[in-house]
């Protein structure tokens, strides 16, 4: 029923796609390189900023997700979707948006100056963490919100009838849910932050904020020291897999058992103080996440008029690649939606995209022109990179579906195809929609490996943004970035909405 061979094939595909390119790079280099003097410092900074970023993202997501889970207000659905947007922004766009708010001449400092207060500088470790929280708080919030929604309505009724105090609610319902969801969310965010580069450098304010990924970039692009690049990317991979393993051990706790599909009505938190607190958390999160987005929109609007045919073609390419990546990623994720599968999947974002691209280039090169394969390779890599997110979203609910309906399906002798079509997919509709939206958006926003496989006829939108900026077309670049935001958010919203419609939330 759960077709094991498929899971093995899917896992081997991930391993092959991650280790194959590293091996190719290594073979080409003729051996491992050595670490330079700055590398240890880079490793330390990478670890510290990743840990802090993941910690604060998850910590802040807890009250926000709790508030969103138990409040009903007009526009809640739209807000939840909108809150997902920072995660899917290309870094350069998001950084400029953040700086417009928190920067030297940003809104916050402007406000402080108007009040006669001293300004503050965003540049430094705190800036890096702030930016990473901006990117990842939405993901953590959504994952925890899903955790709340996966608690069957019966439990809330029981809690209400027992008159559980807020503390008892937290102990009996929230804590088990958090134990199940939070370590995985932490791990996945930790791993994304591991490979941060442009964000860390720009907001870190200088060489102190050097990450391992930057060292890899330098090794590949400047020094052509492939051995060192391979070594560094294996260190990165090792860190990510260790974090994943730890999360796997910590993230125990059982599923919640099946509840029949009813709208989750909650009776807790109706007193005045919790209402105010929830409202405050939602407002703060919205303000923090949406203001920089609003700046991106405001900056981009005048630029939309300057967009040439190239940008529209690039948008079209991005959309096609996104569609293909999404389908591939979900088909890949379903058989892997188990504990070990999720661990294997983490490798997808752990390995440096630059090493991945270089390795794939070396592998493909003897057989075909890499330029002709630009879009297929981009599709494949985007799917691989989105895999950990899709798995994080799908796994808890896929496991719940399995534990609830495995026996019934066995008893009925459902064929694997019927199990997938009639039980797994329909039961997973909500997380599948979310995962699809995220994958599509990530794919649209991702620069991926295309730099090495770039094809002049088929640029993608993020590449177009960089090209425009490189030609002084800052206004057009802001327009293209807005286009990117619209498309990626549109794709995200459509899928996410599609999954949630009629899914009783």
């Amino acid at each position: 029923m759960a077709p094991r061979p498929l899971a093995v094939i899917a896992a081997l595909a991930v391993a092959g796609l991650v280790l194959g390119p590293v091996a190719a790079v290594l073979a080409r280099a003729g051996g491992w390189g050595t670490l330079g003097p700055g590398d240890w410092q880079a490793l330390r900074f990478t670890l510290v900023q990743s840990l802090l970023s993941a910690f604060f993202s998850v910590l802040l997501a807890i009250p926000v997700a709790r508030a969103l889970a138990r409040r009903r207000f007009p526009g809640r659905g739209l807000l939840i979707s909108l809150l997902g947007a920072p995660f899917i922004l290309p870094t350069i766009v998001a950084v400029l948006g953040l700086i417009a708010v928190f920067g030297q001449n940003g809104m916050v400092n402007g406000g402080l100056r108007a009040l006669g207060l001293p300004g503050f500088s965003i540049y430094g470790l705190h800036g890096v963490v702030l930016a990473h929280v901006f990117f990842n708080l939405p993901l953590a919030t959504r994952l925890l919100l899903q955790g709340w929604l996966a608690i069957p309505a019966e439990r809330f009724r029981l809690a209400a009838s027992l008159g559980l105090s807020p503390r008892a609610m937290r102990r009996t319902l929230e804590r088990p849910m958090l134990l199940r969801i939070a370590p995985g969310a932490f791990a996945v965010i930790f791993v994304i932050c591991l490979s941060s580069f442009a964000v860390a450098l720009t907001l870190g304010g200088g060489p102190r904020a050097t990450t391992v990924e930057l060292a890899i970039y330098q090794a590949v692009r400047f020094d052509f020291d492939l051995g060192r690049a391979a070594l560094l990317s294996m260190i990165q991979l090792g860190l990510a897999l260790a974090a994943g393993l730890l999360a796997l051990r910590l993230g125990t706790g059982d599923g919640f058992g099946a509840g029949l599909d009813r709208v989750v009505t909650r009776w807790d938190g109706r007193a005045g103080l919790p209402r105010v607190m929830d409202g405050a958390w939602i407002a703060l999160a919205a303000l923090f996440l949406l203001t920089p987005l609003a700046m991106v929109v405001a900056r981009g609007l005048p630029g939309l008029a300057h967009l040439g045919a190239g940008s529209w073609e690039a948008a079209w390419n991005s959309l096609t690649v996104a569609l293909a990546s999404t389908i591939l990623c979900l088909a890949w994720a379903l058989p892997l939606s188990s504990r070990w599968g999720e661990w294997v999947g983490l490798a997808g974002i752990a390995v440096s995209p630059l090493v991945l691209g270089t390795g794939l280039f070396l592998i493909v090169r003897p057989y075909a022109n890499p330029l002709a394969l630009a879009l297929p390779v981009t599709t494949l890599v985007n799917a691989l990179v989105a895999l950990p997110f899709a798995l994080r979203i799908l796994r808890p609910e896929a496991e719940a579906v399995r534990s609830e309906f495995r026996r019934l399906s066995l008893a009925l002798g459902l064929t694997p195809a019927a199990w997938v079509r009639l039980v797994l997919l329909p039961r997973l509709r909500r997380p599948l929609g979310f995962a699809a939206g995220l994958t599509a958006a990530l794919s649209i926003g991702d620069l991926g490996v295309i730099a090495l496989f770039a094809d002049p006829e088929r640029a993608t939108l993020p590449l177009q943004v960089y090209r425009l900026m490189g030609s002084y077309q800052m206004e057009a670049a802001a327009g293209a970035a807005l286009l990117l935001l619209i498309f990626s958010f549109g794709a995200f919203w459509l899928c996410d909405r599609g999954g949630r419609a009629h899914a009783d939330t």
Partner: protein
Amino acid sequence: MLTLEKLTYGVGDYRLAADLALPPGQRVAVIGPSGAGKSTLLDLVAGFLTPATGRILWQGRDITASPPNQRPVAMLFQENNLFPHLDLARNLGLALRPGGGRLTAEEARKVEEALARVGLGGMSARKPGALSGGQQSRAALARVLLQARPILALDEPFAALGPALKMQMLDLVTEVAAELGALVLLVSHDPQDARRFAQQTVLVAEGQAQPPVATENLFDSPPAALRAYLGQERP
């Protein structure tokens, strides 16, 4: 004849042994203290657990290694007997077409008949969430009717129902089993269920599933293990 031949099963400290035979068409209650292994016994019969040693035979055929759906067993669980996102027609249709294919007109008619038989005529478009607890149990029984297997394994499926409703359901099971000519294994912790429903009773206690005894005799002169379970020191 369902034969459990020198069957043993164990996980950690837990052990269960059974060496007994049950004739076809009988209604058998499986009673015993909580945690003694009543559900385990049913899971072994239904194929959700694999015995450590021994064999399971049905009419002389060894089914020890058969997967659940290839056993002559239809089972009702404590919960999750229906897929909540599928309407009753689809739920029941899966009993006829485990591949999920479209039902023929003949099969669709059978589904409607089965629903009508359990008193749910005309409700095939409803989803389980829109039914009462008793109606959900009836729908699950209709599914068993469609599966038409010679053994029915019921693992306390009506535990959540009120006494009157439960009795109705047990009567319905009796009728359904008679129609199918099926051997029924009913796990229950309520002696009343056994007395009312079962011709024979298997007592599971102290790591052992005892051979079946006529229910009347058993309760009239209960052995020590049963007395302890019933809370009677003496008859």
